């Protein structure tokens, strides 16, 4: 395989990692907790913007022509962390508006409107994040290493993998903890959870915040990779892409989310870039969205739970079988039953 192809594949790998973190975040909000988070792209956007303004340095220099708030030149790990935190922080007002008292389709509609408002607001308020132009020339992590373009991809891929491990750890931790069980219970039945004495809204907020953190983290990584970010990159339909990934791959479980990320944002979107020109030039981009719509319909018809459905969790008998830690172990590896 030529060096150019390796370069392309490493780029795909980076995009896969970034999307995986975002989709795990959405899985926390939607798959585990049942929030119709149609404003998810805004979490990614705020993470990207905050990471950007914290890395770019002071605004309005003759070099950058950009106006934005903050404008510090913090090292990239801190900027990334704050990107994630910004996503988590944004979850609070969004949650208060759309999660506290709204359910179902109301929630979906309200979230969509919030996404639209956010995009319009950032476009209009030029002083916040440079308006419609967006942020550009964002410095890259390890950017001053004098390496070739190809080699830098491997560096960034390593960074992305590290962040994926963090995201995996967070999501898995929540999924396996009692919090995870509570979130699933909230998704399945609000009133049952309330009857048991826990506050379903509070639990939803936790899921929203955790998912928001991951969304923000993925946004921070994305702006550090692409080095630019603007309102055109986070229009509200982008959220539908993430949802398609969850529906195709399987919601409510991490493997399903990973599979969905491989197939949808990476697979279809990138693969259709490779297609030769059909019809008049530029048509393949339209076909991509038609393909995504068709894929979505097909899965919703034939396999609405996705390729890797969420496992039915059963209570195991409390007979000393440490099932909580053995759940992930394949049957052929388990010790044979003693009786």
């Amino acid at each position, binding site marked *: 395989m030529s060096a150019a192809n390796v370069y392309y594949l490493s780029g795909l790998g980076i995009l896969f990692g970034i999307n995986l973190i975002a989709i795990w975040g959405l899985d926390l909000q939607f798959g585990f907790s049942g929030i*119709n988070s149609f404003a998810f792209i805004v979490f990614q956007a705020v993470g990207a913007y905050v990471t950007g303004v914290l890395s770019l340095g002071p605004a309005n220099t003759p070099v950058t022509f950009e106006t934005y708030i903050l404008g510090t030149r913090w090292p990239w790990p801190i900027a990334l962390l704050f990107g994630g935190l910004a996503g988590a922080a944004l979850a609070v007002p969004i949650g*208060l*508006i*759309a999660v506290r*008292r*709204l*359910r*179902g*389709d*109301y929630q*979906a*509609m*309200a979230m*969509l*409107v*919030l996404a*639209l*408002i956010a995009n*319009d*607001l950032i476009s*209009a308020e030029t002083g916040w994040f440079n308006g419609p132009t967006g942020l550009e020339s964002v410095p890259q992590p390890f950017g001053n290493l004098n390496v070739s373009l190809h080699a830098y991809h491997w560096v960034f891929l390593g960074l992305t993998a590290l962040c994926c491990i963090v995201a995996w750890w967070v999501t898995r931790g929540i999924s396996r903890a009692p919090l995870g069980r509570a979130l699933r219970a909230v998704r399945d039945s609000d009133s049952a959870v309330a009857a048991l004495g826990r506050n379903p809204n509070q639990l939803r907020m936790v899921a929203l915040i955790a998912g928001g953190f991951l969304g923000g983290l993925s946004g921070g990584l994305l702006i550090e990779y692409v080095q630019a970010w603007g309102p055109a990159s986070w229009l*509200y*339909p982008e959220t*539908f892409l993430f*949802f398609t990934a969850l*529906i195709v791959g399987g919601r409510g479980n991490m493997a399903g989310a990973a599979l969905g990320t491989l197939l949808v944002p990476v697979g279809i979107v990138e693969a259709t870039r490779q297609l030769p020109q059909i*019809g*008049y030039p*530029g*048509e393949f981009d*339209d*076909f991509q*969205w*038609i393909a*995504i*719509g*068709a894929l*979505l*319909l097909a899965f*919703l*018809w034939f396999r*609405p739970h996705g390729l890797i459905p969420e496992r039915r969790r059963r209570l195991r008998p409390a007979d000393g079988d440490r099932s909580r830690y053995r759940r992930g172990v394949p049957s052929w590896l388990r010790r044979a039953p003693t009786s």
Partner: protein
Amino acid sequence: MTMLMTIILFGLYSSALYAIGAVGFTLQFGITNVLNLAFGAILTSCIFVEYYATTHSTNLWLAMLVGGGAGALLSLIVGFGIVGAFLRRGAGGFNIAMVTIALGLMITYTLAAIQGPFLFAFNVSNTTTALSISGVNLDSQQLTTIIVAIAAMVVIHLVLRMTKLGLAMRATADDPSLTRGCGVSPARTRALAWLISGALCGICGVLYGIGVGTFGPFTGADFFITAGAAAVVGGIGKPYGAMIGALIVGMVGQAASAIISPAYAPISAYVILVGFLILRPQGIFSAFAAQRELVA
């Protein structure tokens, strides 16, 4: 004074456009409990159909006939046919919303694939002033839009309150199983709901398309979100609520443009909408904001 009259008259015009769409959307949502996110795509398709079928006629009555018919047909296929099939298969509320999203994407991008990135235009340069108050002119197309919107509201209200069909629709929305037990065919009610909302969608589309003059494959999508938001704020299934929501969007938009700055017009409207959602999430007229049983 001129500015005030501008705000009022053009606020009414914008509100009228949003109102027709919002009422169509809320009516269908109210009766079938399906969140139809393909509404914007259907709206755009109706403009295209009218453009081609009538060779870009700007005769509003012809346009509404053609557009409304196309909308009704398309809406029937999408809602009654495809969504109905998914419903019979047992799909739940969220999955149905995703189905409509998928259909919307497919319709929009099929239009884009056929059409390319180029826009089409209606020739609206020969308009005549129909109404002139203290120096502010409304042309005949804008006045017609306002009148059609008001008429549509009145007709919908009368149908829902006074006719047996309207009664059947409201009953089906409240309790489908019981209504079925009373001998009202849910399939027929459902089909009529999609038909009527589709017709309103088409009418809104052509009025918007001719009003704006140019259109492309993506014209309907953003317009629809605003109209849909107005409907949600007014209370799902309540046509008067949709009207109030549309009035808010239209009036606040024009007022904000004049008082604050034009760049803030759409945001101000949205912020008011969200404010309403925070204060009264079930909508102005609704009693509750929970998911109701889907009409299958």
